[in-house]
């Protein structure tokens, strides 16, 4: 209970920075942000790929239930799809704040340029979003039909959300699940394409040696699965009383996260070691910024310490047999992957493309060092907290964890 209360407190408090941040964003545009023309993408872009990774990751894990029929993960199936929707919305909200002209977002649909990986990504995740919403509605449909008979506004909300569906028999549920299986099956390659596409968005840029690697889209996918799985575990533990109710499932999830984490580390180290041996100046410049630059702690403490060593130390030892420690390890993974995302975006741009470029003019927008401004942190924490609120609301108002009993309510 206390965990839930803390969850709500953090979520509601974050509405304050979100309001201030949005007000400043709408009145002053990008003036208060600390990124510039040398490091054009900052905290928000890192946050965007963090959230979009969580979305792809939890959706792909939900396919264990809905495509491959793994029964023991059933309790988190609907939660996973819901988290995929929420984190996708947060990611889109963040990147919407980041573009220069908020009012022109529709142009990406009206005037797409399909030689751009960004255009592909936008169209793929629009398709993915529609698929997620339809799949989620199908997963909730029978419960909505059942909830129609609830008194007051809950029943009214259910009547509206049910969109006229009335069948609440077990056969109709089975029919729903068949449709869900089709959608989820289509969703798997879609999620792989769009999140691989986010990695490709960075990877295709020959101008940035730190990103320009065929491993990039693959690393994005594996990190998405690891961080998404970790978030699912934490959410299940917090909201479903997972460490008591679904003890074995939490332990199994922990093992999956461990495997994905180690696979991710393997890819990351391969990428770093190959680049280090090749010693291409542009690559080395970015790598040394990440490892030994002014923000070395994001790599060593955030990414390696919190994101890798602590969770592995828990999950790969007897501690990994205690659901509470597994939850802790997964929380560490989620936090540590913020560092992973920051270390992809910032060092890749902080290395000068032309020697002396940042010294050529004395201007705060022409600097290689970047640290997010208070304004950027306000939006970041605000949107993060908004996510907690949305997940909390979903858990309170939607039967994410268990089906409503059909017989008693329908009577």
């Amino acid at each position, binding site marked *: 209970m206390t965990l839930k209360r803390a969850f709500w407190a953090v979520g509601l408090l974050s509405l304050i920075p979100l309001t201030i941040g949005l007000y400043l964003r709408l009145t002053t545009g990008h003036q208060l942000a600390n990124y510039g*023309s040398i490091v054009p993408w900052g905290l928000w872009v890192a946050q965007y790929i963090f959230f979009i990774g969580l979305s792809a990751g939890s959706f792909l894990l939900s396919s264990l239930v809905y495509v491959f029929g793994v029964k023991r993960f059933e309790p988190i199936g609907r939660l996973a799809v819901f988290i995929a929707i929420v984190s996708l919305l947060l990611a889109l909200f963040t990147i919407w704040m980041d*573009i220069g002209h908020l009012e022109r977002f529709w142009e990406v649909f009206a005037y797409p340029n399909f030689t751009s990986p960004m255009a592909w990504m936008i169209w793929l995740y629009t398709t993915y979003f529609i698929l997620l919403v339809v799949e989620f509605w199908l997963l909730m449909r029978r419960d909505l039909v059942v909830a129609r008979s609830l008194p007051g506004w809950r029943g009214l909300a259910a009547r509206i959300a049910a969109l006229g569906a009335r069948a609440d028999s077990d056969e109709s549920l089975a029919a729903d699940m068949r449709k869900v299986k089709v959608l989820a099956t289509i969703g798997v390659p879609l999620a792989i394409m769009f999140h691989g596409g986010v990695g490709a968005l960075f990877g295709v840029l020959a101008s940035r040696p730190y990103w320009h690697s065929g491993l990039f889209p693959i690393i994005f996918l594996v990190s998405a699965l690891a961080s998404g799985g970790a978030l699912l575990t934490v959410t299940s533990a917090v909201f479903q009383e997972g460490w008591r109710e679904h003890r074995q499932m939490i332990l199994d999830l922990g093992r999956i996260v461990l495997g994905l984490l180690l696979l991710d580390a393997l890819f990351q180290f391969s990428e770093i070691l190959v680049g280090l041996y090749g010693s291409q100046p542009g690559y080395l410049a970015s790598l040394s910024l990440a490892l030994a630059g002014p923000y070395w702690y994001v790599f060593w403490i955030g990414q390696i310490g919190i994101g890798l060593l602590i969770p592995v130390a828990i999950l790969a030892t007897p501690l990994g047999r205690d659901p509470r420690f597994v939850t802790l390890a997964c929380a560490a993974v989620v936090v540590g992957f913020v560092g992973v995302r920051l270390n992809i975006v910032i060092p890749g741009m902080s290395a000068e493309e032309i020697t002396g470029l940042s010294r050529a003019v004395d201007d705060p927008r022409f600097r290689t060092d970047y640290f997010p401004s208070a304004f950027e942190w306000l939006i970041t924490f605000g949107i993060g907290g908004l996510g907690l609120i949305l997940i909390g609301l979903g858990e309170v108002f939607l039967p994410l964890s268990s089906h409503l009993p059909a017989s008693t309510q329908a009577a």
Partner: protein
Amino acid sequence: MDLIQLSSRRDFLKHAAVGAVAASVVVHEAVDAATTPARKHHWGMVIDTKRCVGCEACVIACKLENKTPPGVFYTVVTREPLPGGGNDRPVFMTKPCFHCEEPPCVPVCPVGATYKRSSDGIVVIDYDRCIGCRYCIAACPYGARSFDFGDDYELSPAAGDTVSPEYKQYRVRTPEGSPVGNVRKCTFCLHLQDEKGEYDKEAGRWPACAKTCPGHAIHFGDLADPESDVSRLLKERNAVRLKEELGTDPSVYYLL
């Protein structure tokens, strides 16, 4: 009888569909060919590093010509000390946009707001289309693009009084209207071209940096014209281009 009619109707529809697709492709290409002006020029620069004294007059001239705000630079001068030379005789390099023949910034734009002009190869930005995602800044290997954050010089006239002649659009600067929130870059001062797309050095309709350079280090002209200054210099002297290994084929050369 019915079956035959049905199948022939289906065949007809199928053929009609294929025909329509083929026709639309042909029409699309024809419209493209008719509306895309043929290449008339290949504007480029040849910059003589031996003549550059690093005075940065080009940077100032560019700022005055294009009325760029703080943080937006269409050209900068880098200073690279020679090995062992210290501050003695460093190599100065003025660096405008290179207007690459294969510009990596163009294909990545999600809305096609930045493109290479087919008539003269100048890489431009449609301020009314650009959403300000800054992917092109990430894709440019030369740091030639700036984001307009909406900052203004303190001592310059009130923001509403600044009018930039860029793209012959004469936009009045306002706190939120384009080009604030857009990516901006060097245009080779294309607003100084006449209606036919020609520059005139004698009349002063010439890129501001090249016009101003006191050491005559910046040469501008048509790289496709073998008689132009720039073509002649490239024949006579040793020139390099930056990061040729990326296959961008820049239109700006440096003489050593």
